[in-house]
C-alpha cells in the first residue's frame, strides 16, 4: 500500500521533472520568466491525445507534442524579441491564445485515452513488455531513465557553442551582444527548447493519467518553479549538471509533498480541490523563507 503510493508519486515526480527541466531553462538559464508553460503543457497533452485517438503510435505522438510545444515557445519569443512585449506579458498572451487553440485541437474540453476504447498509450506498451520484473517497478524505472537521458541531453546542449550563448544571454545580455551574438536568436532557441520539454511532459502525463484536459495546465508554471526552487535548496552548486539535477530532485520532492498532502491532508480538512492553494502557499513559503529567516535573525540579535 505504502509502496505503491511511493511508486506512484515517483512516477508523477519523474514526469514532472521533465517540465521542471524546461522551466529551469527559461527561469534560471535565460532569466526569462516564461508563463507559456500553463498553455504549452496542456498543448502537449492535447496533441498526444488527439494523435493517439487517431491511431498514431504513442511514442511518435510525443514527438509531435514536443514539436508543438517548441512552436508555442517560438511564439512567445517572437512576441518578446520582435514585437518588444515584456517577457511576462508575452508568455501570458501565448498562454491565453493556447487555451483556445488547445480546445480546437481536441474539439472538446476533454479526451479520454482508454484501453477499453482501443487506445494504445506509452503505458499500455510498457505493460505489455515481457520482463522478469513487474510493471509496477518497470514503469517508474523507464520514466527515470527517460528523465536522466533528457537531463544528460540538456547538460550536453548547454555546453555546446549554441548552449553557451544562451547561458550568456541570460547572464549578461550586453556582454554577449558585444561578443557578436544575436540575443534574439538565443532567446528563440531557449524558449522553444524549454516549451518542447514542457509539452513533452504534458503529452506523457496525459497518457499516464489516461486523459487530456484543457484545464490541466493551470498553475503548472508555479509547480515547475516550485520544483526548481526546492531543488536548488536541496542540491547546492552552480554548475549546469548540478542545477538540472536539482530541478529533477525538486520535482520529485514537490510531487511527494503534494501526494502526501492529498493522501493524509483530509485529516486536517484538505480537499483535492485545494491543491492549487497548497502549491501557492508552498511557493510563497519557499520564496519568502530567506527574507524571513534574515529578519528573525536580526530581531534575535537586537
Amino acid at each position, binding site marked *: 500500500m505504502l509502496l505503491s503510493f511511493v511508486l506512484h508519486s515517483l512516477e508523477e515526480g519523474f514526469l514532472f521533472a521533465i517540465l521542471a527541466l524546461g522551466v529551469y531553462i527559461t527561469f534560471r538559464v535565460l532569466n526569462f520568466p516564461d508563463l507559456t508553460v500553463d498553455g504549452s503543457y496542456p498543448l502537449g497533452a492535447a496533441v498526444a491525445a488527439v494523435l493517439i485517438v487517431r491511431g498514431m503510435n504513442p511514442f511518435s505522438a510525443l514527438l509531435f507534442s514536443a514539436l508543438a510545444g517548441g512552436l508555442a515557445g517560438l511564439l512567445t519569443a517572437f512576441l518578446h524579441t520582435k514585437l518588444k512585449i515584456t517577457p511576462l506579458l508575452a508568455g501570458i498572451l501565448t498562454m491565453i491564445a493556447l487555451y483556445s487553440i488547445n480546445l480546437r485541437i481536441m474539439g472538446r474540453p476533454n479526451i479520454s485515452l482508454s484501453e477499453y476504447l482501443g487506445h494504445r498509450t506509452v503505458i499500455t506498451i510498457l505493460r505489455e513488455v515481457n520482463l522478469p520484473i513487474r510493471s509496477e517497478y518497470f514503469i517508474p524505472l523507464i520514466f527515470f531513465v527517460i528523465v536522466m537521458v533528457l537531463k544528460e541531453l540538456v547538460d550536453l546542449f548547454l555546453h555546446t557553442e549554441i548552449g553557451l550563448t544562451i547561458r550568456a544571454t541570460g*547572464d*549578461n545580455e550586453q556582454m554577449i551582444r558585444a561578443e557578436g551574438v544575436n*540575443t534574439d536568436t538565443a532567446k528563440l532557441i531557449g524558449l522553444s527548447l524549454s516549451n518542447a520539454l514542457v509539452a513533452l511532459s504534458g503529452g506523457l502525463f496525459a497518457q499516464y493519467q489516461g486523459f487530456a484536459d484543457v484545464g490541466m495546465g493551470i498553475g503548472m508554471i508555479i509547480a515547475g518553479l516550485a520544483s526548481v526552487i526546492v531543488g536548488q535548496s536541496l542540491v547546492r552548486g552552480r554548475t549546469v549538471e548540478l542545477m538540472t539535477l536539482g530541478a529533477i530532485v525538486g520535482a520529485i520532492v514537490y510531487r511527494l509533498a503534494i501526494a502526501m498532502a492529498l493522501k493524509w491532508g483530509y485529516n486536517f480538512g484538505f480537499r483535492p480541490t485545494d491543491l492549487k492553494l497548497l502549491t501557492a502557499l508552498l511557493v510563497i513559503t519557499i520564496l519568502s523563507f530567506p527574507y524571513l529567516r534574515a529578519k528573525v535573525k536580526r530581531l534575535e540579535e537586537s
Partner: protein
Amino acid sequence: MLKISHLTKIFFKGTPNENVALRDINLEVASGDFITIIGSNGAGKTTLLNLISGVYLPDKGKIEINGKNVSNLPEHKRAKFIGRVFQDPLQGTASSLTIEENLAIASLKGQKKRLRFAVTRKKREEFKEKLRALGLGLENRLQERVGLLSGGQRQALTILMATLSKPDLLLLDEHTASLDPKTAQKIILLTEEIVAHHKLTTLMVTHNMEEALKFGNRTIMMHEGEIVLDIKGEERERMSVKDLLDKFSEVRKERLVEDKMLLV
C-alpha cells in the same frame, strides 16, 4: 580605418528633456592609431563609443570601418570588427560562466555558433597559454566561475577576451577607473602590451591626464558633444599635464562666454 562624419546623437529628441550628446562629430582614425580621449563628465565620450559599436543608432552621420559603412548595422554584426572593455568590470564578462567558457565565447566572435562543444581540449591549452601571460595565476582556475574573480582579474580577462580574435578596433572606456591604483597600473600596462603586440587600432577613454599623454600617439578632448582638441606628433610631445589642464579650463571658459553672448 575608422571614419566618422557628421555624427550626431540626440537623446529624448523632441521632448523637453532633449539632450544633444554628440554634435556633428568628425573623426578619422588611421590604422594602428592609439587615441586617448579625455573630457568632462557628460561630454559624450561613452556615447561616441556606443555609437561606434552600434549600441545605439545615430540621428545623423556616418560611421565607416575599413571603408565599409556600418552606420545601420546592428551591434552583434559589428562586433566582429570591434573589441570592447567597459568601465564596470561586471559588464564585460558573464559571471555565471567559467573563465574558459567566457574565453570560448570570445574565441567564437563573428563565427557561426554550432552544436559542438564550446570548450575543446585544444582551446583549453590555448586559453591556458594566454592566461599565463597575464601573470595573475588564472591559468589554474579555468573552470571557476568568473563571478568569483576580483574586479582587476575580471578586467584583465575582459581585455584578453576583447583582443582574442584580433579586432580591427579596440574600444576602452575608463577600463581602469574602478580598480585600486596598483591594479589599475597593472591593467593599463597590460593593455599597452597587448595593443602593441597586435598593433591594434585603439580608442581609450580616460580621466587621467597623465595617462592620456603617456599612452598612445594622439589625444582628443571632448566637451559637450564636440571634439574641442585633437593633438598628435610634436605638439603632443611638448604638452605637459598642466598645459592640458589649462586647455581644459580654457575651453570651458570659452564655451561659457559663447553661451553668454548667445543669451544677450
